């Protein structure tokens, strides 16, 4: 079920019998037809073990299951919404930035340390992602929230992209990320340029960057 944009802050998704969607709890704005919203205590897919995993990982955003026949409009907090269509690859995104996603996508939790070890953990702390991040894999659509508009920057092996950790939203594809620090004597004496830490993304994929350095 692809999301259609109504405006930059609202999306609409059709839903049919046998289909399922997950959305952040309370993000429904309006709906047509017969649609039911069930709070989802497990916070997404999987059983009790997945729930415990997410609780421990602090990636448990209250979600609800959307089922029925009709169409649903989503929006939250006046944030800009960006839709991402996945065709088999993996999207890495913070759970609190997820507005809604197809039930056909497989949800998982990834330990930041599994990409880059200790530096991965430090990176999580600097970007405010914490120790864990959410992954979505498969075929389907995802609606992601960001403060301000989102720009997509392609990453190719010849062209690594550097991103301000605070402006990073999500990334997809086969991407390695690395935190680079450009700390010098200027930072030590409080005369930094404000760009001491950067996230270097290399590989093949796409990174989503928001036009702001504010968190949601």
């Amino acid at each position, binding site marked *: 079920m692809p999301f259609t944009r109504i405006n930059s802050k609202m999306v609409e998704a059709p839903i049919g019998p046998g289909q399922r969607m997950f959305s952040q709890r309370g993000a429904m704005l309006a709906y047509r037809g017969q649609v039911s919203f069930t709070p989802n205590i497990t916070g997404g897919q999987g059983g009790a073990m997945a729930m415990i995993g997410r609780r421990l990982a602090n990636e448990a955003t209250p979600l609800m299951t959307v089922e029925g026949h009709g169409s649903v409009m989503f929006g939250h907090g006046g944030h800009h919404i960006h839709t991402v269509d996945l065709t088999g690859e993996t999207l890495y995104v913070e759970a609190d930035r997820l507005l809604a996603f197809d039930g056909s996508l497989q949800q998982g939790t990834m330990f930041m340390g599994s990409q880059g070890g200790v530096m991965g953990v430090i990176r999580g702390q600097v970007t405010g992602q914490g120790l864990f991040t959410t992954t979505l894999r498969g075929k389907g659509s995802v609606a992601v929230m960001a403060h301000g508009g989102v720009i997509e920057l392609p990453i190719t092996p010849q062209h690594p992209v550097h991103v301000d950790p605070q402006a990073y939203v999500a990334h997809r594809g086969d991407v390695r990320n690395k935190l680079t620090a450009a700390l010098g004597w200027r930072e030590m004496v409080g005369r930094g340029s404000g760009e001491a830490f950067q996230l270097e993304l290399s590989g093949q994929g796409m990174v989503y960057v928001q*036009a702001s350095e504010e968190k949601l």
Partner: protein
Amino acid sequence: MAVFRLHGSRVLAVDLAGDAVKAKNGAMVAYDGEMTFKKMTGGGEGLRGMMTRRITGEAMAVMEVKGHGTCYFADRATEINLVRLTGEKLYVEASNLLATEPSLRTGTTFTGLRGASQGNGLFTTTVEGTGQAAIMSDGPAIVLRVSGAYPLVVDPGAYVAHTGQLRQQLQSSVGWRTLMGEGSGESFQIRFEGEGLVYVQPSERNTIGGQL
């Protein structure tokens, strides 16, 4: 030569080929290629500029971005407007200035009572020379032309920047209603006369006279 282009309305992309641009401290959101960031103390205006900025309170935290590739700038999701200068002077508040080409000079000028009414102090920043500057506004800014026969009156809280040969004066319409607390909220206005352009944002800053 640095090339400024807008990527959407809230992200400024600057293509650099070994040259440098001045940008607001911490405004980089992403880049590809090789870039270095260096803070310029006192807005890169030398020791005298630094002292002036310290004294006037028109502090401007600026960094120099140098390298090869494309650098993307954005700040708190504000709208970005590109202004091309060909020798004239742009008056803008330091907090609304996002990036300037290296060919442009920045400085400070005294604005008097008008500045105070805008809620941004008695001094403002000037940008002079030939090249492009990126200014920020809360919401998409409109550009209003002022000519000899058509003076323009602007709410101090919505004023962003202006260029050209403009005289400005603060006018107030404080009457007995204002004193009773029944003011219209439009007691202070800035009047522009002369030839030039004024940038106005669809939002009002908190100003001293804004509630009157």
